[in-house]
């Protein structure tokens, strides 16, 4: 505690800067020896940062999937070995994808939640001609202007989310001639979602009252809530992401605002975190744990047994992607990405734990499957901390083509780069 001549503000700021730099570079990885008795699959997803909580479900689910696959004899008689890494950010994701493909010779890469990281992984996958299955990036652009032959999407695109929730809003009379106000996460995903929402609401006669872009690190929504209160909208549309949604819901209840709320993007973990009484509105999901099918019941049962809590929708994405890959490799007796891609593009059907089977659309590699809306239950009807919403019917309905909710060629066209 004596005078320290080295201790200056300048030194301090330099040190802090250096540390920030060091933390982005530091990325522990275990060097693995090659061996031919296992089939390696790379899993990349954000485990830290604001998407980390969802990434954790992704990891739990793919672990479970691999466990089940290996228990049934693996793929082509070999065990599946997962290489799991935190994708951190687009740059790191790309570096790690490169390493997984070139050094660890993975058969394919599964995962991701951030659309920005999906794009950098897809670029690496395309360059190395290795399959990448996106399980969480929603941006339409990924299936449109940025589409890649080696990238497939289990996660729905924003258009599918918007049209699914939009149907519920239309049904409830919240669109035509009504004033809507939105909050949008200020990064690629949010911008894309806002664009798609505007297109939907405008086409259906909604009256756009305003939008605020919310920085991803914002935790306090009081300023936004005051603006919403002042705007008196008929519908508050939440195009936020991750913990932002939980923070918003908690504070919306706190400020006692009563305008109908809904969102065009959602994850059930966020509803659970907001909790009974705070969770309100109607939201779209790719899947949820209360779907009444045998497949879902078995998955929820196995997951709950292993982790003591039900899976959320992100868990479904990574679980199902791993299952699709395993089934395809077994069917084709081949690990080669071009062959798998050809099989997918031919319209192979897969069980998705829903009422109908799904398939990848050849034109943009988007999985065509049923979506759902969940609606918050009133507090007195809630029995436990997990079952806090009721499920809408599958969208599209049983008589409709699965493609009616997906973006059309005009809305979002994809030309695969050669």
């Amino acid at each position, binding site marked *: 505690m004596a005078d320290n001549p080295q201790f200056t*503000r300048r030194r301090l700021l330099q040190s802090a800067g250096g540390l920030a730099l060091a933390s982005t570079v530091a990325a522990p990885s275990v060097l693995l020896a090659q061996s031919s008795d296992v089939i390696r699959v790379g899993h990349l997803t954000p485990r830290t940062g604001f998407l980390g909580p969802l990434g*954790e479900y992704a990891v739990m689910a793919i672990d479970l999937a691999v466990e089940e696959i290996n228990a049934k004899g693996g793929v082509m008689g070999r065990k599946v070995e997962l290489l799991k890494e935190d994708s951190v950010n687009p740059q790191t994701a790309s570096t790690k994808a490169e390493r997984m493909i070139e050094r660890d010779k993975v058969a394919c890469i599964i995962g991701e939640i951030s659309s920005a990281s999906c794009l950098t992984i897809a670029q690496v996958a395309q360059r190395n001609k290795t399959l990448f299955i996106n399980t969480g990036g929603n941006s339409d652009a990924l299936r449109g202007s940025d589409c890649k032959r080696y990238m497939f999407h289990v996660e729905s695109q924003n258009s599918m989310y918007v049209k699914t929730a939009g149907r519920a809003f239309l049904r409830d009379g919240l669109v035509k001639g009504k004033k809507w106000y939105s909050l949008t996460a200020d990064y690629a995903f949010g911008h894309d979602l806002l664009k798609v929402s505007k297109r939907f609401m405008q086409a259906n006669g909604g009256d756009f009252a305003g939008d605020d872009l919310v920085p991803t690190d*914002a935790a306090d929504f009081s300023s936004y809530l005051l603006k919403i209160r002042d705007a008196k909208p008929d519908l508050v549309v939440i195009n936020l992401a991750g913990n932002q949604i939980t923070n918003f819901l908690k504070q919306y209840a706190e400020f006692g605002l009563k305008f109908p709320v809904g969102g065009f993007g959602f994850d059930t973990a966020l509803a659970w975190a907001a909790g009974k009484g705070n969770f309100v509105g109607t939201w779209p999901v790719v899947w949820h744990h209360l779907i009444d099918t045998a497949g879902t019941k078995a998955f929820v049962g196995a997951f709950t047994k292993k982790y003591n809590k039900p899976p959320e929708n992100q868990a479904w994405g990574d679980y199902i992607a791993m299952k699709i890959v395993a089934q395809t490799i077994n069917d084709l007796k081949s690990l080669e990405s071009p062959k798998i891609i050809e099989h997918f593009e031919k319209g192979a059907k897969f069980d998705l734990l829903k009422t109908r089977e799904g398939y990848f659309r050849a034109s943009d590699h988007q999985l065509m499957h049923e979506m759902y809306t969940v609606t918050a239950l009133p507090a007195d009807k809630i029995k436990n901390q997990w079952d806090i919403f009721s499920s809408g019917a599958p969208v599209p309905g049983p008589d409709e083509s699965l493609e009616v909710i997906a973006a059309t060629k005009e809305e979002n066209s994809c030309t695969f780069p050669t």
Partner: protein
Amino acid sequence: MSMLLMQQILNGLLDGVYYLLIALGLSLIFSLGGIVNLAHGAFFAIGAYLTLVISPYLGFGGALVLSPVLVALLGIVIERTLFRRFYRSDPILSLLLTFGLAMVAEQALRMIFGAPPLSYSIPPALRGQVIVGSFIYSFYRVVLIGIAVACVAGLWFLLQKTPFGRVVRAGVQNPDMVGALGISLQPYMAAVAALGIGLAGLAGVLLAPIYAVHPAMGNEIITPAFVVVVIGGLGSFWGVVVAALLVGLVKGVMVGIGYSAASTAAIYLLMLLVLLFRPRGLFGERMTRLEQ
């Protein structure tokens, strides 16, 4: 001036109070020991998680008292075992230490409680809204601000009006002279660490009902808190107070006038301007050991 803008100004000022609890502790620990506590956000998160653990048994009130005390005790342990070894060394070492500590704490929370955010709500007795004219505010936040203001006032009194505070302030200015007078600063260092870290724990309890409780929640609050300390001026009590309100105000007004996307950038710009034109911060005192 429009009514909405007035509301945003007021709301922004009130928001600044949350940063205050974190920033004051940071500033205190830095001023006395020269430790830039990058783990301060982690103690905030631990405070929030302890609330979830304690309140099923003792209620929110029990957590409000017990959780900051436990966090403060943890602070003493950390100070006695780790911080004290770094008071005299190159600041890069204590930065590395606390940076690592923050990661360890975050990962520990993730391992114990899981990565997904946990649910916690405002206790029923504190729900509701206060409406003054056209301004709406949550009743819970009124209580929160009341507690925060009481803490800040208490801290001011402790530092300015008590023998304890006199030694701490002397230690900030010239630790060698304090030593020459035969006063050991060691117990004061531990007490200051307990106070500062306990305040972070308290902020964790207070914000758990309105923010998502997740392992990385400390990161959301630590950066603006650092900005507050830098703007206010290291070692200045009132500097930190004014800077906290200023940061809240700038954020609120940026959202209010429709530039929400730049609301985070704006506080960094503010910090940049302060560093350019007044490097020691708004109210920072000239400390010989900090300037060459």
